[in-house]
């Protein structure tokens, strides 16, 4: 049976803050994912190594040629200091997107895992929160490990760097929620090419490898639309101990993405699974 067109969705459309937590069973799905990861540990390490490789090739390698650049609030920083926080932000994004697109697509379309869960008292929001929550736990482990590497390399300028961990969590939440919402619209593996079409330019052009100021004004405006730009700016300011009021905007953009993504994902999961 497919395509429920005129049929309404039975999931009660309550929009109270509590409804965002589903039936409160999200942690059981997180435990399930932990059991699965425990027996398939290799997958777990890729997410940690990726930003480290980038840091050494681009930050350390290219940085030897580039010299110093202008960082947040106009301070001068070494190139590797400039790139490292962006790698932290980008890896939070990449981890969340991989988890929320490939993994969830598989469970949704092939594993029928969620059908089995919805035969119990669990509701679609438990699934959305559980999957994103698990992706957060994973992401937090990667971010912490990477921040430790940065600290050892002397790339951290103050205690505010600790706040980069929740910031990376927020980036993961925002991209995880939107990625999951997008996944519910995908019908085949080919649709994942579209994901790369968004992710790769965002990775390259969100003030990741050089300051926005090298662009002409109009292109700067375009780059500022990129959610990763806001994530990078936030993490960079915190790691380099250069806070500013623009961080409020950065946080607001990421929070808005998270809420919108979660609401769409919940609705779509109900439409797809409860027909």
């Amino acid at each position, binding site marked *: 049976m497919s395509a*429920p067109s005129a049929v309404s969705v039975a999931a009660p459309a309550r929009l109270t803050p509590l409804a965002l937590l589903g039936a409160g069973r999200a942690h059981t799905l997180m435990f399930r994912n932990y059991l699965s990861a425990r027996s398939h540990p290799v997958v777990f390490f890729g997410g940690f190594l990726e930003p480290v490789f980038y840091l050494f090739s681009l930050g350390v390698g290219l940085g030897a040629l580039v010299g110093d650049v202008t960082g947040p609030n106009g301070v001068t920083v070494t190139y590797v200091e400039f790139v490292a926080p962006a790698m932290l932000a980008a890896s939070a994004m990449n981890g969340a997107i991989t988890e929320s697109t490939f993994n969830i697509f598989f469970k949704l379309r092939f*594993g*029928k895992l969620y059908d089995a869960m919805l035969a119990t008292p669990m509701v679609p929001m438990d699934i959305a929160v559980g999957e994103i929550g698990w992706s957060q736990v994973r992401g937090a482990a990667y971010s912490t490990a990477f921040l430790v590497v940065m600290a050892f390399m002397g790339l951290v300028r103050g205690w505010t760097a600790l706040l980069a961990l929740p910031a990376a969590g927020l980036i993961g939440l925002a991209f995880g929620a939107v990625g999951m919402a997008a996944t519910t619209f995908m019908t085949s593996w080919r649709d994942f090419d579209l994901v790369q079409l968004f992710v790769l330019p965002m990775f390259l052009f969100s003030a990741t490898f050089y300051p926005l100021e090298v662009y002409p004004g109009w292109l700067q405006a375009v780059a500022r639309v990129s959610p990763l730009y806001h994530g990078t700016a936030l993490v960079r300011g915190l790691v380099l101990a250069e806070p500013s009021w623009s961080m409020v905007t950065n946080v607001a953009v990421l929070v808005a993405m998270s809420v919108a993504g979660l609401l769409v994902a919940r609705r779509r999961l109900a439409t797809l699974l409860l027909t």
Partner: protein
Amino acid sequence: MSTTSATDAATADPAVPMAAVVARGLTKHFGDLVAVDGIDIDVAAGETFAFLGANGAGKTSAMRMIATVSPVTAGDLRVLGMDPTADGPAIRSRLGVVPQEDNLDLELTVRENLLVYGLYHGLPRPLIRARIDELLAFAQLTDKADNEVESLSGGMKRRLTIARALVNEPDLVLLDEPTTGLDPQARHVLWDRLHELRSRGVTLLLTTHYMDEAEQLADRLVIMDHGRIIAEGSPRELIERHVTREVLEVRFGSGRQPAATDALLALGLPEVDAVEGLAERAIVHTRDAQATLDALDRHDLRPRGHLTRRATLEDVFLRLTGRQLVD
């Protein structure tokens, strides 16, 4: 079986037997497609009830509405005395669901599948751990407890799916084509397990397109066709009401069969109630098989082969729908 869920307060005194499922005018549309067309059902607590019908008859759609994972388009439905729209989670905490296709968690072991499913139901871990050993024994999977699910045979996966559906000690178990795709041996093992559940007083609601399965298991059944219920009763009642006690199958060979069936019909034999013409045989509902065979012989309609046997639900189905139950 008792239930440990916290939702019991919402229901009546468990000592008073209550209808497990009551449906009136239950209807399901998918766009323009009418999958279930206004059916009435009453399933008593402790009963084994079957939906019988071909693929696409509406059995699965009806089951999904009862499982509260498919919104009701129209009509009234009460499951365990509750309303599926408002009380979905409360109903599901007392249901066990065995879907048509196994949806076990292939990344986990047999034991982990049961553990995680108990947690989805919100049961405390010590309770689940105690039940897992019982369920593994019930499903004859104790030796396989720590194997990955992927490595199990089809019959074992099916038994694990049933064991998983029992982790919350449900009052009502829904089984959608429980034995489809299993070899005969695995089917019999499974039937045996279902009989055991029945004897414990669990209400079973199953769909099947196997006649022998419905006869084996069901106290009562409905035959569905094109979203409607076309007959209802116990297997025995349906056979008595709609077919003769014995049926005679006559085979004339595929070339000669249609003409021979027509000729047989044209004879208008007094003891014959009905004739179902199939591609390679005719099923004759007769009160006296020997008299019919003698009459055929007298009229030079000598079948290549014949068989007199007890009437089955398949005969009822053919009689009521006028077609083979194979899509």
